């Protein structure tokens, strides 16, 4: 019998870490890269790419993050900065975790479309490890559409990065291979998005926390054929499930409420965050993550590529973000929105309140905010979380009643 996507997922995640370790042993170049960067540029030159954010998440999900947080905090890292960075800076020193391991880098590759923080973090790595720092700077889009000079600047940096990579590798750039990787990356992105969008069905065949699992893989395997094939398989499974009218969970477990989860999962507190939602029949049907790795552009269109990367939602203005989320509420028949006020991530946090107001004004659905963190287990409070979720349930129920009455 052929494997399910879930089986393949676990295999591929394991393989990702094993291959990276092996590559290092074989003397291949290793890059540490940010989660939504133009990895195409590295993959095309056969550089092994690993993702510290992903790695930190894996460590946290297996409840091993504290050791690394302690190490970096001991070196002077404030507990107020991003915990992905703190875990990784700790790992840089300790270089071993029971949870998962990544080889030490020969270069760092950073795209600051996700935040300014990563540029600081990678600058630290480049300095302390004395390795090249490749940066793709994507200016914040406070205007709805990126102006021409932004695109030009990013194009210029992509060219510059290519030269840096040639120098590091000591051989001319392989443009043919780049074309190929671009093609695969776009196909992966297509299947990833299509799979995530099966959650539009009522009930959704997809459980949002499953999406988080697959997300861990789309980060690191976007440019690889195995990745593309996996996401295609996953999508087909979900579409088949939807056609049969199957929901996200076991038979008899009803999807009562459909919500958007905004922000990163609490990897260090995954189980309570999931179980409490499930207890109330709440399924996370979407977020802006389906779009995060939906990096689509025409193969070999460098400007298009630049645009696709700079348009990551956290790099866009509130008009865009709030409107997109409101649209999701409508397209996915969402009953409420849960905002994770993530102690690590100021960029995602400091517009939450405004987004709440706009989404409710635009769609009428209720929203709640809870305090948490993705890898620092000390921030999340189960009691607060449950209280907030209960409040959301009450508001969603009220809305449902109102709708039912109006329908009569």
């Amino acid at each position, binding site marked *: 019998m052929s494997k399910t996507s879930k089986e393949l997922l676990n295999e591929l995640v394991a393989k990702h870490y094993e291959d990276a370790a092996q590559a290092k042993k074989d003397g291949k170049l290793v890059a540490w890269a940010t989660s939504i960067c133009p990895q195409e540029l590295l993959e095309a030159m056969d550089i092994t790419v690993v993702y510290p954010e992903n790695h930190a998440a894996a460590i946290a999900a297996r409840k091993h993050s504290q050791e690394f947080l302690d190490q970096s905090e001991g070196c002077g890292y404030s507990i107020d900065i991003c915990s992905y960075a703190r875990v990784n800076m700790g790992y840089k020193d300790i270089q071993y975790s029971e949870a998962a391991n990544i080889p030490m880098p020969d270069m760092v590759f950073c795209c600051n479309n996700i935040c300014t923080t990563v540029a600081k973090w990678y600058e630290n790595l480049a300095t302390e490890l004395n390795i090249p720092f490749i940066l793709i700077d994507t200016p914040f889009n406070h205007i709805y559409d990126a102006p021409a000079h932004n695109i*030009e*600047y990013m194009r210029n*940096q992509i060219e*510059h990065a290519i030269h840096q990579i040639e120098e590091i590798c000591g051989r001319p750039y392989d443009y043919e291979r780049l074309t190929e990787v671009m093609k695969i990356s776009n196909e992966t992105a297509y299947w990833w998005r299509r799979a995530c969008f099966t959650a539009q069905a009522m009930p959704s065949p997809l459980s949002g926390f499953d999406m988080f699992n697959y997300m861990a893989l789309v980060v690191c395997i976007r440019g690889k054929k195995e990745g593309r094939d996996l996401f295609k398989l996953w999508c087909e499974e979900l579409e088949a499930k939807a056609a049969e009218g199957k929901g996200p969970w076991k038979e008899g477990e009803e999807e009562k409420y459909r919500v958007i989860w905004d922000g990163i999962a609490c990897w260090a507190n995954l189980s309570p965050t999931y179980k409490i939602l499930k207890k109330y029949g709440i399924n996370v049907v979407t977020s802006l993550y389906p779009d995060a790795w939906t990096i689509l552009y025409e193969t070999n269109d460098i400007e298009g590529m630049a645009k696709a990367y700079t348009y990551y939602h956290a790099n866009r203005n509130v008009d865009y973000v709030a409107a997109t989320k409101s649209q999701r509420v409508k397209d996915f028949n969402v009953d409420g929105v849960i905002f994770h006020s993530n102690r690590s991530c100021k960029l995602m946090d400091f517009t939450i309140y405004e987004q709440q107001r706009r989404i409710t004004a635009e769609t009428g659905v209720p929203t709640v905010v809870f305090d948490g963190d993705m890898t620092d287990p000390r921030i999340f409070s189960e009691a607060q979380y449950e209280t907030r979720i209960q409040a959301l349930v009450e508001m969603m129920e009220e809305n449902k009643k109102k709708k039912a009455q109006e329908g009569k």
Partner: protein
Amino acid sequence: MSIITKKITKLENIALNPAKAVAESCKETGKEAVGCFPIYTPEEIVYAGGFLPVGMWGGKKEFKESEAYLQGFCCSIIKTNVELGIRGAYNHLKAVIIPALCDTLKCIVENWKIAVPQVPSVAIVYPQNRWAAGSQEYLIAEYKRVRSELEKITGVLITETAIEQAYELYEEYRAVMREFTEVAAKYPQTIDAKKRHLIIKAGYYMDKAVYKEDVKCIIEELKKMPEEKAKGVKVVATGLIGEPIEVLDIFVENGITVVADDLAQESRQFRTVGRPEGTIWEKMAGRILDQRGCTFLAEQKKSRGDMLINMVKNTGAEAVVVMMMKFCDPEEFDYPVYKAQLEKEGIPILYLEVDQQMESFEQLRTRIQSFAEML
């Protein structure tokens, strides 16, 4: 009162009463003010438009209105700006310029449009990849965009000639400030840590044409005096700002002299010398592209640690004081790296976590005292 005391007192009063000072500067010059958020903004463009660029470095205010936009873990300086903005304290400003230099500031760019709609805002996004050739062209385009937006808001045409003149004035001001920090280090009694800070800060609320003359005068008067000996420890200060002011009082009480600084509000504004060649736009861009050791502008390898070590060596300082603004991510990221470098050199560090809303200084007082005694 001697001339120097008069000048110092004047600037101190200005720095301690920004709102009043701005109103007076506007009245004196007949100009209207444009607010400039930390850290960098192209003030020359504002000045060229006939406006008074004024600094917006927070203050001490209770947070109420701003709670509808920002969580508790936002740096106090910027939360105060939003608080004051919503309360109408900036309604007299023609516009504000907000640079998206950190994640918090990016969000402020967005929140301001909604929270303080009565004060138009112009965002600027500085390049971080300053080693890529395209960064200069990009930054120039950003400057030009800022100019057009200011023109649209104010209805004033801002010519290149006017910008050239403003740039020249600013270069002169910056040269004066560089000289001031050097000369002041030789007069630690007349220019103690608190006076040094206030004199520099006053420049944010005055017309630079007037301000630079005042500082020049202080320099000239100082030079006439015999050099003074420091009473206690000489330090280099680093961080975002040398505030709250109470901390500087404690420095003075304990004879701590700031002989040089790497504070964003102080020397980082003027330490980089402009390029002699190029168009006015290239020169302005050059000042950002050539800036080193500032956490708000990325580097391929961080140079701040080496820079601080050199500053300590060149000034005969005995320690580095870190004024860490709570919740300032970029500053917090730099600290562990330069801390290790300074420790390797055997340079003592006094780490002070500060924010503008601090009420109690007893803990800091004890730490500062014992640090001063230890050295």
